[in-house]
C-alpha cells in the first residue's frame, strides 16, 4: 500500500493536546475533529494541513494522552501518514490500530523539507523523497500483522469470525 503527499514539517514533542484539545473529544467523528486539529498549537500548523499531506515530525510525536481522537483528527484533516524521528507509544499504537500509516525514520525526517513531495510504501516501510530512498525502522511481527490487516478491528475479526466472511484468514 502506497501513500504520498506534500510534506508538512513539525518539530519535537507535538502533543495530543496540540493535535486535538480535550474539550472536542466528546465526539469521535473524523470530519468534526478535523475542524479543530492543531487549534491550540502556536503558529499556523492547522492552516498548512490539507488533503494529501504527509506529516513529518521530530521526536516524541503524539506525546500525552491516549485519545484515539488524535490520529482520527489528523486523518480527517487529510493527513495520509506520519513519519517521525520517534513516536510516543500510545499514539503509535492508535495510529496502527486505526490504519493511519506511522513510520519511524530519523534519516528521512532530516532530509525532508517542508512542501516537498514524498511517497511511502507502507508494506515495505520504504520512503522516497526526490531521488533518495530511506528505510523506516522495522516493526515487530505482530504489529506488522495488525498493520497489514488494515488495523486492529480486521485483525481481531480474523480470530473471531470464521474464514468465509473475512479475506486472507491467517493459517492456524
Amino acid at each position, binding site marked *: 500500500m502506497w501513500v504520498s503527499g506534500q510534506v508538512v514539517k513539525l518539530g519535537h514533542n507535538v502533543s495530543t493536546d496540540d493535535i486535538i484539545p480535550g474539550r472536542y473529544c466528546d465526539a469521535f467523528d473524523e470530519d468534526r475533529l478535523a475542524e479543530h486539529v492543531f487549534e491550540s498549537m502556536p503558529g499556523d500548523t492547522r492552516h498548512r494541513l490539507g488533503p494529501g499531506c504527509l506529516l513529518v515530525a521530530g521526536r516524541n510525536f503524539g506525546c500525552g494522552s491516549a485519545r484515539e481522537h488524535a490520529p482520527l483528527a489528523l486523518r480527517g484533516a487529510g493527513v495520509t501518514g506520519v513519519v517521525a524521528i520517534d513516536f510516543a507509544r500510545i499514539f503509535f499504537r*492508535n495510529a496502527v490500530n486505526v490504519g493511519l500509516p506511522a513510520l519511524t525514520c530519523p534519516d528521512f525526517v532530516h532530509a525532508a523539507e517542508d512542501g516537498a513531495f514524498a511517497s511511502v510504501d507502507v508494506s515495505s516501510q520504504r520512503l522516497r523523497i526526490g531521488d533518495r530512498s530511506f528505510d523506516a525502522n522495522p516493526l515487530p511481527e*505482530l504489529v506488522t500483522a495488525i498493520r497489514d490487516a488494515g488495523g486492529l478491528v480486521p485483525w481481531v475479526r480474523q480470530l473471531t469470525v470464521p474464514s468465509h466472511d473475512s479475506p486472507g484468514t491467517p493459517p492456524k
Partner: protein
Amino acid sequence: MTRRRAPAMPETLVEKIAGAHAVGGTAPAGATIQVDVDVVVINDGCGPLAFEQFRRMGVNEVADRNRVVLVNDHFAPAPTLAAARLLNAMRQFADEQRIPHFYDLGSGGIEHALLPEKGLVRPGDLVFGGDSHTCTIGAFGAVGIGVGSTDIAGILALGRTWMRVPHTRRWDFVGHRPAFVTGKDLVLQLLGRLGPDGASGEAIECGGPALAGFNLDDRMALCNMAPEGGAKTALVIPDQTTEAWAESVHGSPVGIRPDDDAVYVSRETIDVTALRPMVARPPSPADAVPIDAVAGLRVDHVYIGNCANGTISDLRQTAAMLRGHRVAKGVRLIVVPATQAIYRQALSEGLLEVFVSAGATVASPGCGACFGGHMGLVDAGEVVLANINRNYHGRMGHPNAQIYLANSYVAAAAAVAGRIIDPAELLRDEIGVG
C-alpha cells in the same frame, strides 16, 4: 494468571509481572509478547468509541465481564449534549454486558483513584486502561499501561493484548523527607532529569528507604507523571506500606520484588533531604525547577484536583494552607476531590468548610478542567497554578494561558498569596495578600 517457567535471568519488577501474564512464558525486556489482562479500565472519553470498535470485531460478549471497570469521570456531569450521549453509552454498555464494576456520578470518581479505593487492583496485577495515566496504580505494586479505544476494544473481545516489555530505569530515594515536599515533587525531580522523552517506552521503578516517609497518595503522584517523561509505566517496589494496604484490602501479603541483580538501563540514588518543592513551567511538564526559580510569579487561577492529586492527603495539605486565610482578591481557586468517598471524608474532617470559608469553589469528583473538558477552563493570558500532570498549550482552555504545575501545598499557598510563594512562608508569617 498464566503459569510460567522459572526464568534464567534476574528480573526487574515489570519483567516479573509481565512474565506472569505472558502467553507462553517469560517476558525479557525488549520482547514483544501477548499478555492476559487482569483488569481493563474504561472512562467515558474512551469507552463509547471502544464499544463501536468492539461490535465491529464480531464479538457479542466481552471476554470476562468481571475484569471490566467502567467509570464516568471525564465529561461527568455532562457539559454538552455530545457528552450526555457518551455517559449514556457507558450506562447502556454496562447494562447490556452486565458489567458489575460500573461507577457513575454520585458513586465513583476519577478512575485511577477508584481502582485502589474499591479494591479492584492487587499488587502484581497487569492492568490496561484507556487513559495514559493508568500507570498511577504503580503506587500499589501493579503494572498499569495506557492504550487507546481500539486496543481497549480488543481487550474486551479477547481478554488479552500485546505489549513490548519495557526496559527499566531505577531510582532509589534515601535521606529524610523535608517539609512541603511530596510525591509530586519526586516525580517532577525525575522529569527534570529525564526531559519529555528521556524514558521513552520504559518503565520507572522506585525504591529506597526514604519512600517509607511517602504514603500511598504520594506514591500515586510519583507514578502518575511517568508518561510525561515518555515512560510506559511506573512502579513503587512494594514495602511495608504496600503490604499493610494489601493486607487490609485483600487480606493477603504482596510477595513480589525485583531481583537484586536485575538489569536496569540506569540506576541512580536521590537524596531527598535537600529537595525543594518543584514547579513545572509551561508548556512542558518536564521543565521542572525548584520553586525558588519562579517565586513571586503572580497567578490568576489555581486548580487542585486530578487522578493523582485529588487525594485526601492533597485536600489536607490544601486546608493546612487555607485555614485562617482567604483566597486572594482576583484569584480563583477550584478544588476537586478525586472520588465521592474522598469528598465525604473531606466533609467529615471539616476540610470543605475550610475551603468554602476561604472562598474556594468545590466541585464534584471528576477529571474536569485537568484535560480542559469543563469545570473551569481558562482565558488567554491567564496564569494558572495546578497540581495536575500536563501543561501543554491549550491544556486547560485558551492556548495562550500559562500553566504551572506543582504540589497542593504550593498551589494552595499561591491561591492565598496571589503569587507563587514557598509554603513555609504562609505558615510562618501572615503575609500581605492581593
